[in-house]
């Protein structure tokens, strides 16, 4: 069962009727915790994985409390290295094969949702150390990390925000119109995932399958057909990702709300972004904001504080590093590194471009530049195309990507020859 599946929707429908009848906040919290634990148990395969999960999450709480009582940058740095190291090892990142003996990578541990737990945990530790989280209890923290509605793929909620609704846990909404609006959102999310999303995935897979078979020398197609197949693949995958992920978020946010939990919005018309920096404030927003707050700001703060004279130039480097790391977080194989690299290049290039326009036209000229509709149209189309390029590397292994590019390159050369 996953969020958005038939079983999930039926269960949400049944439990959301019973849930408001449970008297008292604590009893409702226990019921929801039991639900989260049952949901989690579907994905944790063995006792060792439960233990790994307990250590991963438990260590975060203990270290956060220790750092809150006495902030120590040495302890924080050591824990951060250990935490990220454990994450990389648990996820079995490809590059580890060249660094560790195979026996160390043959572990049976599978911790579902750990990528999102990592982000929540880093946020929790940093904000506790900086005295931004007060009086966090193990009970609330555990439920924050294991909340079934955000377990598998976010949104990446901040602790204080979660606690606000968790402490009240008033099943929302109370008026039938609000309930109906939530159910419309949930069902629309299901339609996006399993209707539009599935259709777009079908198109992508068919185009991909044909291009890969051409790369392997099976049959032949005219250059025009190859380019159409490539265009289909290039366009279908980013649209599929949007339909699938935003649909998933509609289901997760709507369902959580039925049980009194407010989750943050994760999408805001991303394909209307005029550059990649703006894109990350509209697409998977909670990840974009996390990258800004816990990667970009500390990095830039460090370099601008250490080398103030070079701050402007180093800002581009900070964008680059932050987004490369974010890209690598998405998956364990080398194609995610390329995905991150392209986002690093795209975000820093957007900042360079903005700086150049301001230098050339001044602030007032930049305002006119932003207001221009033709420029806006070009910028939106350019951003969409660039994002589609990054998704091309997100969707397939590097071998697969280069095989397809080889076929497409051949077709383009064929167009030019007599």
């Amino acid at each position, binding site marked *: 069962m996953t969020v958005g599946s038939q079983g999930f929707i039926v269960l949400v429908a049944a439990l959301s009727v019973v849930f408001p009848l449970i008297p008292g906040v604590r009893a409702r919290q226990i019921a929801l915790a039991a639900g989260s634990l049952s949901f989690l148990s579907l994905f944790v395969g063995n006792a060792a994985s439960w233990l790994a999960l307990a250590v991963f999450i438990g260590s975060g709480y203990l270290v956060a409390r220790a750092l809150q009582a006495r902030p120590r940058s040495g302890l924080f740095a050591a824990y951060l290295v250990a935490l990220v190291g454990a994450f990389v090892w648990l996820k079995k990142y490809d590059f580890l094969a060249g660094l560790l003996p195979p026996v160390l990578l043959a572990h049976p541990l599978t911790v579902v949702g750990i990528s999102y737990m990592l982000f929540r945990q880093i946020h929790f530790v940093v904000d506790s150390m*900086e005295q931004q989280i007060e009086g966090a209890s193990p009970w609330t923290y555990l439920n924050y990390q294991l909340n079934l509605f955000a377990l598998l793929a976010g949104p990446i909620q*901040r602790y204080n925000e979660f606690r606000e609704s968790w402490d009240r846990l008033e099943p929302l909404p109370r008026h039938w119109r609000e309930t109906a609006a939530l159910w419309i959102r949930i069902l629309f999310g299901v339609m996006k995932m399993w209707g539009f999303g599935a259709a777009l995935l079908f198109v992508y897979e068919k185009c991909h399958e044909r291009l890969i078979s051409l790369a392997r020398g099976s049959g032949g197609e005219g250059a025009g057909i190859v380019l159409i197949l490539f265009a289909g693949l290039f366009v279908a995958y980013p649209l599929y990702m949007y339909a699938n992920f935003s649909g998933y978020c509609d289901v997760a946010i709507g369902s959580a709300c039925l049980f009194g939990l407010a989750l943050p919005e994760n999408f805001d018309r991303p394909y209307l972004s005029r550059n990649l920096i703006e894109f990350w404030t509209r697409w998977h927003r909670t990840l974009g904001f996390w990258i*800004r*707050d816990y990667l970009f*700001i500390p990095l830039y703060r460090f370099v*601008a504080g250490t080398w103030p004279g070079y701050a402007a130039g180093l800002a581009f480097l900070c964008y680059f590093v932050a987004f490369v790391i974010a890209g690598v977080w998405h998956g364990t194989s080398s194609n995610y590194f390329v995905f991150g690299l392209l986002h690093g290049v795209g975000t820093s290039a957007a900042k360079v471009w903005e700086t150049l326009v*301001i230098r050339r036209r001044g*602030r007032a000229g930049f305002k006119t530049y932003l207001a221009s509709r033709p420029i806006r149209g070009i910028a939106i189309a350019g951003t969409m195309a660039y994002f589609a390029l990054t998704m091309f590397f997100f969707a397939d292994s590097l071998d697969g990507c280069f095989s397809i590019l080889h076929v497409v390159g051949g077709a383009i050369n064929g167009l030019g020859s007599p």
Partner: protein
Amino acid sequence: MDGLHDQVQDVFRRVFGDDALVIQEATTADDVPGWDSLMHINLIIAMEKRFGVKFATAEIARLKEEGQNVGILLTVLGSKLSRLKT
């Protein structure tokens, strides 16, 4: 607060390179040309250096959110300075 306001205005003028810049409590990021995410961090770093305080990561992000203004920045800064004195 007036003294603090003048000092903060001075920081704004240096960071944004505009000697004529006038800030008021209701001033938001939209009112100051160039007050984007990057300049916001530059502003915070300059405040930290000028007043000897430290802003938390979450505070930096929060101060740039919609609905925030110079008045809120002054309040946060003021409470940090009073904590520093005690």
